[in-house]
C-alpha cells in the first residue's frame, strides 16, 4: 500500500498525563477517503493533531510519504503545506476580525502572491457558501458558519491531504447534504481525505476505508464494504450500526431485496427497492 500518512507504534500522553493513544499502528492510503470513528475520548482528535505535527508522539513515529516527520521549522512548514487540518472546535481556528481575512491567513503563510491569495480566498468562500458573509466579523457568525469558515481557511491552502475533525457537527441538513459532494469533489481532484465523525451512516456511504479507534487503540481498519466485520465492531463499541445495513438485513429476511452486498447509502437502498434486479 502507498501510504501518505502513517503512525508507527505511537503512544501519546497529554501534558497532564492523560494517555490518549496507545501503541497505535495505522496507515492512510494515498488518494483514498478514510472515515475515523470512535467513542468520545477515543483519541480521534488527538491522532489528527499528530498527523499535522501540532503534537509530537511520546513514543513511536509519524511518517508522511514514507519519511519520518521532522519537527524543525522547514519540516513543519512542508508538512502543513501538504496536510491541512480543520479543527473540531471552530474557535480554535478563527482569529481574524473578518471572515475573508481569516481565510487569507493560510495561503499568505504559504508565501503566495496577493492576487493568487485573493483568487483562492474567493474560491474557497464560494465553495463553502460564505461569499455573502465574507465581510462579517468572525465572532458574529453562527456555529455552522464558523465551521464553514474554518473549512474555507484550509481549502484556500489547497493541501494534498485534507483532514477534517467532525466537519458536519453543527451544520444544518442542507449544508450537511452539500458536504458529501464537496468532499467527493476534493477527493476526485486527487486529494486524500480523512474525516473523523460520529455519523456511521455518513461513514459507510462516503468512505472507502473505515478506522475505528477505541481507548487510544485501533479496533478496526478495513474497507467500508466489509460490512460484517464493521458491524461487529460498531455493535460491540455501541457506536450504532448504519441504518441502511439494518434495513437491508430486515428486507432481505422478508425476501424483498436480494444480493449479499448491502447498499451503502439510503439512495442506493431505495434504488435497489425500486429495481430489484
Amino acid at each position, binding site marked *: 500500500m502507498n501510504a501518505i500518512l502513517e503512525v508507527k507504534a505511537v503512544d501519546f500522553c497529554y501534558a497532564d498525563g492523560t494517555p490518549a493513544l496507545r501503541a497505535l499502528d495505522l496507515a492512510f492510503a494515498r488518494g483514498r477517503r478514510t472515515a475515523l470513528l470512535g467513542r468520545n475520548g477515543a483519541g480521534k482528535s488527538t491522532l489528527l493533531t499528530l498527523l499535522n505535527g501540532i503534537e509530537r508522539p511520546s513514543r513511536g513515529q509519524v511518517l508522511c510519504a514514507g519519511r519520518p516527520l521532522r519537527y524543525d521549522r522547514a519540516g513543519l512548514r512542508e508538512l502543513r503545506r501538504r496536510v491541512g487540518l480543520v479543527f473540531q472546535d471552530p474557535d480554535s481556528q478563527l482569529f481574524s476580525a473578518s471572515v475573508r481575512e481569516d481565510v487569507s491567513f493560510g495561503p499568505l503563510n504559504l508565501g503566495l502572491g496577493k492576487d493568487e491569495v485573493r483568487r483562492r480566498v474567493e474560491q474557497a468562500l464560494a465553495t463553502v457558501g460564505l461569499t455573502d458573509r465574507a465581510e462579517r*466579523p468572525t465572532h458574529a457568525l453562527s456555529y455552522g458558519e464558523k465551521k464553514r469558515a474554518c473549512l474555507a481557511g484550509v481549502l484556500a491552502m489547497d493541501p494534498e491531504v485534507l483532514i477534517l475533525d467532525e466537519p458536519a457537527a453543527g451544520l444544518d441538513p442542507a449544508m450537511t447534504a452539500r458536504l458529501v459532494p464537496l468532499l467527493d469533489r476534493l477527493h476526485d481532484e486527487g486529494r486524500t481525505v480523512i474525516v473523523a465523525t460520529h455519523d456511521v451512516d455518513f461513514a459507510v456511504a462516503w468512505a472507502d476505508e473505515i478506522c475505528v479507534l477505541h481507548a487510544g487503540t485501533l479496533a478496526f481498519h478495513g474497507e467500508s464494504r466489509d460490512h460484517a466485520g464493521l458491524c461487529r465492531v460498531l455493535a460491540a463499541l455501541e457506536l450504532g450500526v448504519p441504518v441502511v445495513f439494518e434495513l437491508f438485513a430486515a428486507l432481505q429476511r422478508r425476501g424483498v431485496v436480494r444480493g449479499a452486498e448491502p447498499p451503502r447509502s439510503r439512495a442506493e437502498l431505495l434504488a435497489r427497492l425500486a429495481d430489484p434486479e
Partner: protein
Amino acid sequence: MLIDRYAYGNRWREIHPVVKGTLAGLGLAASLAAATPLVPLLVMALMGGAAVGAAGIPLRVYLRLLLVPAGFLLAGVAGLAFSCSGGDLLIGTVPGLQLPVFASGAGLNRAALVLARSGGAVASLYLLALTTPLTEIVGLLRRLKVPHLLLELMVLAYRQLFACLELARDISVAQQARLGHATAGNRLRSLAALGANLIVRSQWRARQLHRGLLARGFEDELCWLEPERSLPARHLILAVLSGGSLLLLALLVRG
C-alpha cells in the same frame, strides 16, 4: 459591543478608510492645535454631523457614546476650573472641611478650552471608530507604518475580547440555568466560579488558538488580506478640504 455593530453597518462603510482617516486625523489635529474653543466646536459639529447625518448613526446612540468620555472629562476639567488656593471669586466652601473653593476667569477659560479640544478630538476619533471596522483601521495604521507587532496585538486582543465576552456569557447562562443566581449566596459563589474559570478557560482558548494558527502554517508573523475599496479622488479632496480648512482656521485664530 455597540461601536462594533455600527462599524459594520453604517452608510459610510464602503468609503475608503483613508478618506475617513484623513478627515478624522485633520479634525484631531485642528482640535489639538486650537487656541480657542471655537474651532474644536466646529470640529465637533462637523464630525457629529458626518456621523449622525451622513453615516446614519442614530443620534441617541451617538450621544450616549459621548457620555462615556464626557464623564471623565468633566471630572478632570473641574480641577482646572475651580481651585481651593485662591482665585477671583469665592463660590463656597467644601462642607465639613472649612475649605474655600474659588473660581477664576482664567481657570474657567482654560477649562472651557480643554473641554472643547477634548470634545473635538473625541468626536474625530468616534467618526473613524463608528464607521470603520477594526480590520480596516488596522490596515490604515499599517499604511502609516505602525509596527507590525502592535497591529497583531490589536487584532488578537479584539478577537480575544469577543471570545472572552462570549465565554463569560456562556458560563453565566449555564450557571443561571442551574439556579446559580437564585439566592444572594449562590450569586456570589457563581461569580467567584465565573472569575476563576474565565482565567483558566481563556488561557486554554489562547493555547487552542495557537495550535489552530500553527496548523495553517503560522510561523512568526500574522498576515491577512485587506478588503479592497475604491478611493475616489472626490472623497479624498472633500475630506482634505473640510478637515484642512478647520486646521487652518485653528492655526489662524490664536486667542
